[in-house]
């Protein structure tokens, strides 16, 4: 799954533009990630110009 480091996020919404399943949306002043919709494709990780989205293993496994 992915994690977003919100402190470095510039709210450009590039991640939601490339997300094929609408699993990241701007909510107020923060990008919200809906893990239940996420398909772990990592496109947002690649697109993020601020480099604040990372893939992490589920439950540290």
């Amino acid at each position, binding site marked *: 799954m992915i994690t977003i480091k919100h402190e470095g996020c510039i709210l450009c919404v590039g991640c939601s533009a490339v*997300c094929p399943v609408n699993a990241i949306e701007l909510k107020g002043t923060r990008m919200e990630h809906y893990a239940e919709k996420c398909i772990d494709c990592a496109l947002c990780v690649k697109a993020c110009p601020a480099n604040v989205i990372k893939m992490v293993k589920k439950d540290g496994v």
Partner: protein
Amino acid sequence: MECDVVVIGCGPAGSSFARIAAQQGLEVVVVDKRKEIGVPVRCGEALGVSEPAKEGLSIPKYAISLEVEGAKLISPSGHAVYWKGEETRGYVLERKFFDKWLGELAAQKGAKIMAYTHAVDIIKEGGKVVGVKASHGGREPFEIRAKVIVSAEGMEALIARKMGFKSYHPLHEVDTCYEYEMAPYEHENVIELYFGNKIAPRGYVWIFPKANKKANVGIGIGGNVINAKKWGGTEGADPKKLLDEFIEKNEQLREASTFLDFGGVISVGEPLKELVRDNCMVIGTAAKQVDPIHGGGIALAMEAGVMAANYAEEAVKKGPSALKKYEKEWWERKGQQLKRRHLLRKVMERLGDDDLDYIFQQLNHEALLNIMNNNFAPVAMKVIAGRPSLLKVLGALMG
């Protein structure tokens, strides 16, 4: 809240649409998620001098940072081609003032613009979209009901997607960008574009001079071609890192201060075929109406906004079928041209630095003008004559 037309997004597309629609006497509401219209700035801010006149507009001085004579294109090995002429004059805008000014024009015609109001969902009744739900600053959403719904949302295109448009951007159809506003920078009164697979893979670095020795310095790189791990970076494409490397090598910029630090993604994919679905429309970057060569979309957005708005009154009074005329007109007037630009982009993506260098050496004013006018064959022929190995790649441009 009820109105004739609700527009999502108050960038150049949305406000141009709103201005013309309101002028026809329609009740128009424009919502924009940003706290301040035009902020943050999302691009290189360049616009051809002749563009605003097409819409009968004259940009106020305070929205223009600098008028430039043309462009300087720099090849991977550093060979510079200057391109100056009547056709290449352009403005480097102050986008935050420009966008706001366009919005003000719409408001003067009677459109109601609401900043910090984020359209979060569509309202659907009996299979038909009858409006949107919008939240003011994250508060409980309220309803805006309208006969016509227009997405001018730019890259995010959340509502456009919910309305069923194919506004999703696959990674190979986006460039990921980063930009700084920097000063001081002594410029040559031209925009500077640096090409090369090491400098900016599948894209370019730009330096757009602005007033008072400022410059908008940015980079756009292909979203899918890079794995930054190769150069010890992290897993993302990391345009910021590449831009920092470029700046470090530039004697002037290395010493300069930064006044703005921002990034984003821009579509370089083909425009949407379907621009209208029943009473819903999509205009501007949300419809991928962006030039895939330089990533510019301001003029295209304004033009699409005006074009679409010309059919709004008929649609509100007689039914949404009138809107389809916008789709037809746009594809006839602009779509086919953009398709040619896509062909050029696909070819350019296959060129290595050595070939790029060779091609840059063949470029002159006439050749660049031809390229701008989508007449690729003369340049392609000249290049192939000198370097036959490029026939395979450039052959596609001969038709």
